[in-house]
């Protein structure tokens, strides 16, 4: 410090350097002192601190001590949830406007203590802007007010656990906590090391401002073990996580089989393309790069893609703007070695460097560095190293730019730069990421739903869409809680089907042999073997159906990826027409279908006919939705064009290929409902009929064949539920699995689909009576629709 303060005015007058940023931390220090620098857990509206707990030290950027936090044990975990359960009772019983009023009081409390919060965040090395949090809180207090009028028939889940990894920001944490509170849930927050002090402060402020005790509890400690410790409490209804991929997967596996849904937002560390087209305002684009690419704490790893025709221009400006930039501190001691190795390797592969100064020979800081001309296959692109490194790649045409941006396992966000409107919108549409910032970057607005595509998550945060993870349709029961069974995940679904050789078979009628439906063709299973389908009541063999397995799933996926992009690009009107024609064909075959239902399930012919009728109605219903709101049309464009300063286009996009393991109940109606929802939104589906009642689905193949749905959009594979579930789970192309089956199956899927990540919609047939398919309640239809779409936000700053 002496070196800095001794600088004379004349020195500075000559050098024209910036002064040190003044950072008073007096307010935060005073708050910490009032807690003797030892922060307890925040449970039931007060700080709790048992003397015998281990503690964890929070340090500032120079390694100095800030305070200590408690490492919670099992007892604390269960205390926090039971307090949450009683908090939930009080909080959810309030009318919407009272909840909103409470949240608005929190806004003013937050504004009053913004300075303290901001200082505390800086001290704990978890920088955050109080004004952004205020805006977030205002936004969601609005939703608290409007819940019952705009989202009727949905109900809060109960006690929600919000877990974040150590490197996650306070904003990302609150992006989950606040909507959960606004919808009437109680929250148990498990912050990382750096976010713990500010969250504890917030919890205290909130309770002082009138949030009932127990509605927001904060437990600190080792995030990974604590997450599953808290989740195993039967009062917990939902677990949501934000942070890095590794910890997310561990949490997912640890909670598999508890019967609690888990969603992951894996935004941290995702590779995001920053694409500069030749029609861009190059100076502003480079400005964006400088602002975001070399920060010490960055949410994502940018990959700069520049069109060849403006390559020189971009490189020249990068050189000018980077000159004089200072070295960036690395986050960990060991990072320097990784950075050196990455730079060396890039250079060996022909990359040239842009650096403001050569790196010091050692030490935990590195100058901002652009690796010019690396190839997409270079390690520094595939697995980015820590530190202020930015790979710079070139592309020739617009199409190649988008392909380059898409060729990544991540799908978090992209920044694209062009003054060409059509190009901007087309590129935004083609990039498979959750958020596209046009001529801007890193915009976080509460109204902007952020949902990672591909491996960047299966959860939507922010905006109205971000509310639904904290709600369930009032008429559908939550997943029943259970304790994880000991499942041998490597053996699940590998047992051969039990061959039933019927005794004393009735020779009066030979059972019919059905074929399954893959890629628009009827076929046997790859293995060639089949299984028996028994008549209701057991005993007689009604039919034989193929015993499908991995290879059949593989064939179905191959067929699906050939046609799904074309199906998705079809106009909503064309998709509607296909579904209407499917309904008409079903109408023509209604008698056959009714008979099949009757003989399979023992349902009276009259009731069977009713089920066919309802199935036709479902097809027509989803056909009608195709070109309407909540169909394929991004209606929100118009709303935002009129009122919003920033143009936010929110598109429901299609998931891709969906695997559906069908329920036993209402075998025709349930299948048709799910098929219609998925296909109407542009997905391809691979359906596994109930092994108990597969015949209506197999009979339905006739209907599919005579419709004009492209072959491959729907495949139907019969066989063992576990075998086929295992096959679906182990195919990376399948993006979502809708599952009706055993508790064990749910557990297997939760465990296995953590990596590669899939969206799961799980139902345990053994425990819940299952939904009443004959009464398609509006919220159930909406739930189905939300499962069938993926969101993309396009942010275009305009005046």
């Amino acid at each position, binding site marked *: 410090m002496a070196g800095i303060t001794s*600088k*004379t*005015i*004349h*020195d*500075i*007058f000559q050098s*024209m*350097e*910036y*002064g040190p*940023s*003044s950072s008073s931390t007096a307010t935060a220090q005073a708050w910490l002192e009032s807690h003797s620098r030892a922060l307890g857990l925040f449970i039931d509206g007060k700080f709790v601190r048992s003397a015998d707990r281990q503690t964890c030290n929070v340090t500032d950027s120079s390694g100095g001590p800030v305070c200590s936090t408690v490492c919670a044990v099992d007892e604390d975990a269960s205390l926090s949830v039971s307090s949450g359960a009683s908090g939930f009772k009080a909080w959810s019983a309030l009318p919407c406007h009272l909840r909103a009023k409470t949240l608005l009081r929190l806004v003013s409390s937050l504004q009053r203590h913004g300075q303290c919060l901001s200082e505390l965040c800086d001290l704990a090395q978890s920088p955050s802007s109080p004004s952004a949090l205020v805006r977030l809180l205002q936004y969601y207090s609005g939703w608290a007010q409007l819940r019952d009028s705009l989202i009727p028939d949905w109900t809060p889940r109960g006690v929600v656990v919000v877990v974040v990894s150590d490197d996650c920001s306070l904003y990302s944490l609150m992006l989950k906590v606040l909507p959960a509170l606004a919808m009437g849930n109680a929250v148990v927050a498990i912050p990382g090391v750096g976010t713990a002090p500010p969250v504890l402060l917030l919890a205290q402020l909130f309770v002082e401002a009138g949030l009932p005790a127990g509605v927001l509890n904060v437990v600190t400690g080792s995030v990974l073990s604590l997450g599953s410790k808290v989740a195993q409490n039967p009062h917990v209804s939902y677990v949501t996580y934000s942070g890095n991929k590794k910890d997310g997967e561990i949490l997912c596996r640890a909670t598999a089989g508890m019967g609690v849904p888990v969603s992951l937002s894996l935004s941290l560390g995702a590779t995001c393309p920053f694409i500069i087209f030749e*029609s*861009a*305002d*190059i*100076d*502003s*684009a480079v*400005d*964006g790069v400088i*602002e975001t690419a070399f920060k010490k704490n960055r949410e994502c790893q940018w990959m700069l893609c520049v069109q060849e025709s403006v390559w020189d*221009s971009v490189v*020249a*400006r990068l050189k*000018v703007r980077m*000159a*004089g930039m200072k070295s960036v501190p690395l986050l960990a001691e060991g990072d320097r070695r990784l950075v050196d190795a990455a730079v060396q390797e890039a250079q060996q592969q022909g990359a040239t460097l842009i650096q403001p100064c050569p790196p010091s020979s050692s030490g935990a800081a590195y100058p901002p560095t652009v690796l010019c001309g690396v190839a997409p296959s270079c390690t520094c692109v595939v697995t980015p190293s820590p530190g202020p490194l930015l790979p710079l790649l070139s592309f020739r045409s617009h199409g190649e730019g988008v392909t380059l941006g898409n060729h990544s396992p991540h799908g978090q966000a992209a920044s694209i*730069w062009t*003054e060409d409107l059509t190009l901007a919108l087309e590129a935004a549409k083609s990039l498979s990421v959750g958020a596209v910032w046009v*001529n*801007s970057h890193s915009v976080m607005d509460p109204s902007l739903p952020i949902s990672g595509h591909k491996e960047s998550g299966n959860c939507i945060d922010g905006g109205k869409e971000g509310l639904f993870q904290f709600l369930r349709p009032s008429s559908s029961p939550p997943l029943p809680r259970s304790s994880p069974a000991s499942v041998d995940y490597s053996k699940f679904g590998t047992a051969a089907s039990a061959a039933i050789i019927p005794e004393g078979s009735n020779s009066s009628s030979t059972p019919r042999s059905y074929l399954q439906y893959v890629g628009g063709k009827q076929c046997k299973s790859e293995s060639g073997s089949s299984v028996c389908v028994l008549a209701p009541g057991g005993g007689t063999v009604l039919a034989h159906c193929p015993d499908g397995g991995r290879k059949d799933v593989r064939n179905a996926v191959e067929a699906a990826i050939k046609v799904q992009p074309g199906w998705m690009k079809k106009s909503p009107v064309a998709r509607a027409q296909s579904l209407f024609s499917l309904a008409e064909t079903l109408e023509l075959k209604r008698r056959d279908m009714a008979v099949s239902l009757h003989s399979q399930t023992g349902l009276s012919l009259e009731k069977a006919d009713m089920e066919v009728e309802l199935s036709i109605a479902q097809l027509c219903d989803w056909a009608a939705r195709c070109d309407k709101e909540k169909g394929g049309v991004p209606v929100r464009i118009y709303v935002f064009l009129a009122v919003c300063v920033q143009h936010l286009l929110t598109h429901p996009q299609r998931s891709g290929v969906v695997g559906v393991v069908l329920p036993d109940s209402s075998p025709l109606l349930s299948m048709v409902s799910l098929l219609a929802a998925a296909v109407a939104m542009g997905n391809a589906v691979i359906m596994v009929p109930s092994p108990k009642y597969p015949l209506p689905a197999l009979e339905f193949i006739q209907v599919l064949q005579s419709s004009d749905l492209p072959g491959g959009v729907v495949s139907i594979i019969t066989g063992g539920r576990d075998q086929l579930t295992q096959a679906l789970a182990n195919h990376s192309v399948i993006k979502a699995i809708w599952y009706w089956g055993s508790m064990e199956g749910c557990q297997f899927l939760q465990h296995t689909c953590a990596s590669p990540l899939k969206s799961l919609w799980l139902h345990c047939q053994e425990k819940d009576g299952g939904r009443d398919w004959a009464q398609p309640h509006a919220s159930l239809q909406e739930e189905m629709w939300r499962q069938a779409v993926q969101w993309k936000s396009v942010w275009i*700053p*305009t*005046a």
Partner: protein
Amino acid sequence: MSARNPGMPLDLAWVSKVRVNTQAVLKRAQQIQGRNKNKKQWQAAWLLRAVTCIDLTTLAGDDTPGNVHRLCMKATQPVRYDLLKSMDMQDKGVTTAAVCVYPSRVADAVKSLKAANSSLPVASVATGFPAGQTSLKTRLEEVRMAVEDGAMEIDIVINRTLALTGQWEGSDFIKTSTGKESVNATYPVAIVMVRAIRDYFLKTGHKVGFKPAGGIRTAKESLVWLTLMKEELGDEWLSPRLFRLGASSLLADIERQIYHHVTGRYAAYHQMPMA
């Protein structure tokens, strides 16, 4: 003054390829305004640097040798000697960059400065200032006369008819406006202009200077302008060779801020010597 810009053949293809994204520039302007949080000696040093970049200006219809003389004296001693001395800056040549007057007052200014033994340059607005709507012949004659009277720098109002129809002229310095418009120097416009300077530098290697003028009245604004130059073009554009602030009342505010830095008290305007 930097080495003269020799110019280049007019390349309209280059000009027409330039893209500017308004929102990105506005955001950048916001960011620059929040960037400089200098305190204490950093703030004082930056303010003194701002002083050295000022073209201390009087452009009034009632300018006389008397008030031009006062202006020149203020330009040679822009900050109270005792204040400079307490910062140990009294012998570091802290003067404004130039004085700027109408052509008919150039001779008065040159005379006053010479009498005070100062080598400060005199700048003159010329060519039908501020509208520029006079014939080329009289415009050229005005420049010649100002130079004959001893003006070292000429602020030319370009013929905006030509500019608006795409027939540009070249220069050593570019200026945001005459200072007499309803909207003068704004940060977003300046960002676009300095980026043009950068563009030209990258293409030709010649450094063109920049002069915002009009409405710059507070010390804080002068710091934002310096920050803008530093951020966009680098430290080289922080000297009077490549950067000028066209202003008349700015200096008084800067001097008060420096007074505050030195004494810890806020000054009244009358405590600062008048220009």
